[in-house]
């Protein structure tokens, strides 16, 4: 008896549970999933979520007459959590667009969910260039930086400045390896030599041994193909062991928060590539001042990009007249982006092409105001900074 009622209930239930398709009414929900509590919390994190909210408010709080809501979640650097949150929001909350924060593993997982559910996925935080190459989808946009651009910008700019021999200190991790591979390719293509390299395990606490090996190589450039805590500890040790006196250090993935936590004494002269700096022009300063008032620190390029990506999306929705993903993606890929973050265009493979910069960290005496850390060495135009169309591994782009 129990079984029959159960079966009946199931039959009715299955009938009512339909596919979760996107509806075109109700609030426009933007989701933001990033690391809020671990290693990347400072460069993106909760402040990044707030930037998305600011963008929505500044846009007027409404688009196409529908109110804008921002959802945010902490993926705790676990792709499981990122992926299930993305799914849940798309199935149950009628999510219109998903913004991906730091951590490439989570971004790759979320981009697959977004492609399956047909919603735009705009990655700001992760570095993996796979998002617009092997793993590209019609719904993925890679907005801020990627490992290819970091490598190309630092590589070409420094080679052109005369630094021909390179030694790599690489984090033994996929992104570290791709940073090194991309940068080595650029170095060699521009007539430089890679004298040697050493891979260190992630979260190594002591870098003295690796740095000694780097010093023995007598290369001109010590390229740090690592990030976060590994970068700051390596940089500190490099200063301590006097490496910075004989080699110029290039950080391949450095954010302003890292420079701040190290202090100018340890980082003076460091070369780094990034997409934006708070002090680069008036519009940026205006944004930064607002950020500083709330957080008592300057925004990183990712936090600025979070604001920009949300605004860009909302503009695209307005232009397309709908939140239907295919139409919005067409609008995104045909519009020009021009705001305080950057000027550029989103390519067919989802890669946002914009200018990148090589910065150098100022010395203690040159720095006049708090957080006044960088000066621009060169600007690399977007079409040279990112993966060239001819080298792209994405099927969406016509070569």
């Amino acid at each position, binding site marked *: 008896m129990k079984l029959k009622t159960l079966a009946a209930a199931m039959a009715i*239930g299955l009938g009512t549970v339909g596919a979760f398709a996107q509806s075109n009414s109700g609030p426009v929900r933007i989701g933001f999933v990033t690391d*809020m509590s671990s290693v990347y919390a400072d460069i993106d994190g909760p402040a990044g979520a707030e930037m998305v909210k600011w963008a929505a408010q500044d846009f007027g709080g409404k688009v196409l007459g529908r109110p804008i809501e921002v959802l945010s*979640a902490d993926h*705790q650097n676990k792709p499981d*959590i990122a*992926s299930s949150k993305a*799914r849940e929001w798309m199935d149950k909350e009628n999510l219109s667009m998903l913004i991906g924060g730091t951590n490439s593993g989570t971004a*790759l997982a979320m981009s*697959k969910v977004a492609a399956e559910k047909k919603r735009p996925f705009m990655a700001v935080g992760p570095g993996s260039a796979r998002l617009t190459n092997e793993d590209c989808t019609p719904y993925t946009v890679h907005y801020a930086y990627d490992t290819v651009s970091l490598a190309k910008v630092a590589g070409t700019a420094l080679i052109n400045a005369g630094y021909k021999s390179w030694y790599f200190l690489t984090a033994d991790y*996929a992104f570290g390896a791709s940073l090194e591979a991309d940068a080595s390719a650029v170095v060699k293509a521009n007539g430089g030599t890679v004298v040697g390299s050493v891979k260190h395990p992630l979260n190594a606490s002591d870098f003295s041994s690796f740095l000694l090996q780097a010093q023995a190589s007598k290369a001109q450039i010590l390229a740090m193909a690592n990030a976060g805590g590994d970068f700051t500890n390596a940089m500190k040790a490099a200063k301590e062991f006097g490496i910075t006196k004989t080699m110029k250090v290039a950080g391949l993935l450095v954010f302003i928060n890292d420079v701040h936590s190290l202090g100018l004494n340890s980082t003076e002269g460091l070369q780094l590539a990034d997409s934006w700096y708070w002090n680069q022009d008036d519009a940026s300063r205006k944004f930064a001042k607002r950020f500083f008032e709330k957080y008592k620190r300057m925004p990183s390029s990712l936090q600025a990009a979070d604001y920009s990506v949300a605004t860009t999306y909302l503009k695209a929705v307005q232009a397309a007249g709908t939140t239907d993903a295919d139409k919005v993606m067409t609008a995104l890929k045909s519009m020009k982006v021009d705001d305080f973050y950057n000027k550029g265009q989103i390519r067919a493979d989802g890669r946002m092409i914009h200018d990148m910069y090589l910065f150098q960290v100022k010395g203690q005496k040159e720095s006049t105001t708090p957080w006044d850390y960088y000066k621009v060495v060169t600007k690399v135009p977007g079409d040279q900074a990112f993966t060239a169309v001819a080298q792209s591994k994405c099927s969406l782009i016509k070569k």
Partner: protein
Amino acid sequence: MSNAAKATAIDPMTKLADSTTSVPPDTAGEAFASAAGPSALLRVVYVGLLVLVLAAPVIGLYPVFVMKLLCFALFACAFNLLLGFTGLLSFGHAAFFGMGAYVAGWCIKSAGWSPELGIVGGAVIGAGLGLLFGLVAIRRQGIYFAMITLAMAQMVFFFCLQAKFTGGEDGLQGVPRGKLLGLLPLETDIVMYYVVAAIFIGCFLGIRRIVTSPFGQVLKMIRENEPRAISLGYEVDRYKLLAFVLSAGLAGLAGSLKTLVMGFATLSDVHWSMSGEVILMSLLGGVGTFLGPVIGSGIVVALQDTLADKVGEWVTVIIGAIFVVCVLAFRKGVVGEVHAYMERRRARS
């Protein structure tokens, strides 16, 4: 008395798998058991849970979330087979879970296997790895056993980090769900859900069967008083090894299932914090009970998921607090405490 001697001569009543939380050796392996067989309350609870599991998508519970929960519940049940019923605390169970996840993912994605074969592959790898770990670790006791399993799990982590097929920290992404037995497409969440539920229920019943069998009785005897078991002539090491292999194989199965559900396997599946989480799930739910790991994993997974968008930064602190509270005041876990409460009621009446 030297430290090592202390480690082996621990009063059984204070062991991690406390005998008061689970079955006295002379009855059928049931929490809530009495000489007359399973109590009415127990029957109701089991049926209720079964109905809940079967009806979940219908009553509005999000299928993907419940599937994830079932996978971790299976992982916790597998772990509990070793800890609760054999008395061995392994710190490296993530190795079996994660390798099962990776191998299944690779077989399904790159080698084109159908999903059920992928799951079997993951379980076999888990069991094989368990055999390897077991052969090395089984002769040791207590903390040394735990540390060896941790060390070996770290080596597995390192292997997964280096091996090309795992994709490093990007993970093994884009694993398709395919067609079960080449016939039933698993793309829709509802269909996948019932397959996962069926596998989970099957494994759960399987674990019960193992524990209540004569083999299970020997395991419990080993947990209670290993010297006595040896003196009775049992080849204790063989039994422990077999329990280890079974536990590892089931953990591998849970990992493969998870890959199929989520579509990827990543380094967090083999990281030592995953080993820590499964210990928490068992402790919270009740070590040495059947429902304990299920309840415990449900609580932990639900906490992580629901807190992710509310108090993101505080999730680790909350988990830490739960550990502390559990160990101080709640050692028997949810199910164990309920059982103890029932016992007290029965004693009073």
